[in-house]
């Protein structure tokens, strides 16, 4: 008892001292008695929703080639700082953003929002957000990646080369549950999914995929979706390029053919092989440490680490080379390897202080291995020079060159 009350007195004393110290730091502090008009820390805010340390300043930046805000005062493409990332989950605040041409981030009142399912179904249905939450839910980790996530020789950091991908833990209702509730009719081949933002962005998705593993998600990393990620509900189409993952989902129309609508037609191509590589992502990996513009302080022990992901399944393995591709060794997977999710790899390594080129390449559960640029060029019968642009969603290997002074540079440059 004695110890306890003494502990409590000590706590009260310490608290008073802390408040006093805070007050002393303010110009208007007088006679040591705090007054209400002083610039006190917002204790209510500190209690209500946590903030990161002021010493942590990892932040998103806009894509150099497509600045945000653009000429219309709108955001387009914002890169996630994956050079600072640890583990496999991207904090919601640092998730990359790609928006439709001409869409603002809407503030949607979830009480007013509805999802309509109609078209080739036996029973058209309309749901409130609360009704969607009544269905059996699943929680799964999935990455998203923008088709524009393409490393260029002019890029300096891994944020610039690979920042248009992120991975979250998503919670929602399998789309198949909602589609079965409506009763998909024979002959249905695609769905058209549409958002509620100003331009009502829409995309077409094969019905087999819609009934396979798509989600109508309302949760991201343990809380409600962020508005930039589609609050109150969004579609997740695991492994498909980001564009298909419709935010602010308001309508699903079941149709008999590919509607090639708003989001889709800017990505259409004349080559079926490129169309396939455009729709599905990866397998892809990148080293996030050591990466561009970071510096190794000197020779010695380090762990090479990075992220690997595939749009066709889970990551089976990741290989690392520290001699420019002459020899490859298996890295360790340090997180569970979930289908269509970022997987964190690491490779214990002792740097001898000499210039070298490091790379990672991954293989997914289907046995598909991430290609080098040379391998991609060879497949398309193109010369492997600086003009070569890997068709579709670029998943080629990115080399980092470590100079003798420990500085790290884009190996494409």
């Amino acid at each position: 008892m004695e110890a306890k009350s003494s502990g409590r007195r000590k706590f009260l004393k310490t608290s008073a001292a802390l408040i006093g110290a805070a007050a002393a730091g303010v110009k208007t502090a007088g006679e040591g008695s705090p007054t209400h008009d002083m610039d006190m820390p917002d204790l209510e805010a500190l209690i209500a929703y946590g903030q990161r340390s002021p010493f942590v300043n990892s932040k998103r930046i806009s894509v150099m080639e497509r600045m945000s805000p653009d000429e219309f005062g709108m955001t387009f493409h914002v890169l996630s700082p994956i050079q600072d990332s640890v583990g496999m989950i991207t904090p919601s605040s640092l998730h990359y953003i790609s928006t439709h041409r001409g869409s603002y981030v809407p503030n949607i009142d979830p009480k007013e929002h509805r999802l309509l399912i109609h078209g080739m179904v036996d029973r058209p249905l309309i749901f409130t957000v609360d009704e969607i939450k009544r269905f059996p839910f699943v929680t799964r980790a999935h990455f998203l990646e923008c088709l524009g996530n393409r490393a260029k020789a002019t890029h300096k950091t891994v944020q610039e080369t690979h920042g248009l991908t992120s991975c979250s833990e998503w919670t929602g209702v399998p789309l198949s549950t909602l589609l079965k509730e409506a009763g998909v009719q024979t002959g249905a081949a695609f769905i058209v999914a549409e958002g509620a933002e100003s331009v009502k962005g829409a995309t077409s998705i094969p019905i087999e995929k819609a009934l396979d593993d798509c989600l109508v998600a309302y949760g991201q990393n343990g809380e409600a979706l962020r508005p930039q990620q589609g609050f109150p509900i969004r579609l997740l189409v695991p492994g498909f390029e980001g564009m298909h993952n419709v935010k602010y989902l308001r309508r699903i129309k079941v149709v008999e053919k590919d509607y090639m609508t708003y989001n889709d037609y800017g990505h259409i191509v004349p080559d079926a092989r490129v169309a396939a590589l455009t729709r599905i992502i990866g397998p892809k990996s990148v080293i996030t440490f050591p990466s561009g513009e970071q510096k190794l302080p000197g020779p010695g022990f380090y762990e090479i680490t990075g992220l690997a992901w595939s749009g066709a399944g889970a990551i089976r393995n990741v290989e690392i080379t520290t001699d420019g591709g002459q020899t490859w060794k298996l890295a360790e997977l340090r997180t569970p390897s979930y289908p269509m999710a970022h997987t964190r790899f690491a490779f214990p390594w002792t740097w001898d202080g000499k210039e070298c080129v490091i790379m990672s390449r991954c293989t997914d559960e289907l046995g598909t291995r991430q290609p080098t640029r040379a391998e991609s060029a060879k497949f398309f019968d193109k010369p492997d020079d600086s003009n070569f642009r890997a068709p579709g969603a670029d998943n080629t290997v990115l080399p980092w060159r470590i100079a003798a002074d420990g500085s790290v540079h884009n190996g494409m440059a």
Partner: protein
Amino acid sequence: MAWRKLLLLVAVLSLAQLAKAQSPKYGVGRTPTAEEVRAWDISIGPDGKELPPGQGTAAVGAKLFREKQCVVCHGGTGSGGPAPTLIKSDGKKKPMYPCLAPCVDDSNVMALHAQYATTMWDYINRAMPLNKEGTLKPDEVYSLVAFILFKNGVIAEDQVMNAQTLPKVKMPNHDHVAPAPEWKHAAPRLAGYP
């Protein structure tokens, strides 16, 4: 005869199974009214069956292109503005907007990538003009589509666009689009790549 009875039994059982599979399991959500579905459904498919009544011409579209402020973003001649090029330019003016994939050249006409003219109708109707999306009337959308198609040499100046004529327009890119292969669970992205 026995095998016939068996076949009948199997058929009846399958039907029962089918009926069971297709009945709602949770009973959550409500049936929208036909009016609600009509008001929400702005998807226009390639065959144009959802196109509303109405019509438009390039001449009316030319007027609307100015009146509806399209010129502010897309340029007075439909090119050279900050927004994507809508009308082929002489190639002398470089657009301010980045060339969007599939980027052809500086006179890249975004609207002409579409495989079907119905996509242009759908796009303008849902997403234009900036900050007044969804306010154009069907006649106005038909006219704007007619104007852009005429200025790009796809249709004649006097060709009337409506629910019957629009789906029949052959877009210049129609035969240059390859769809992605049929999607299958656990199939590789592209067999043999790299």
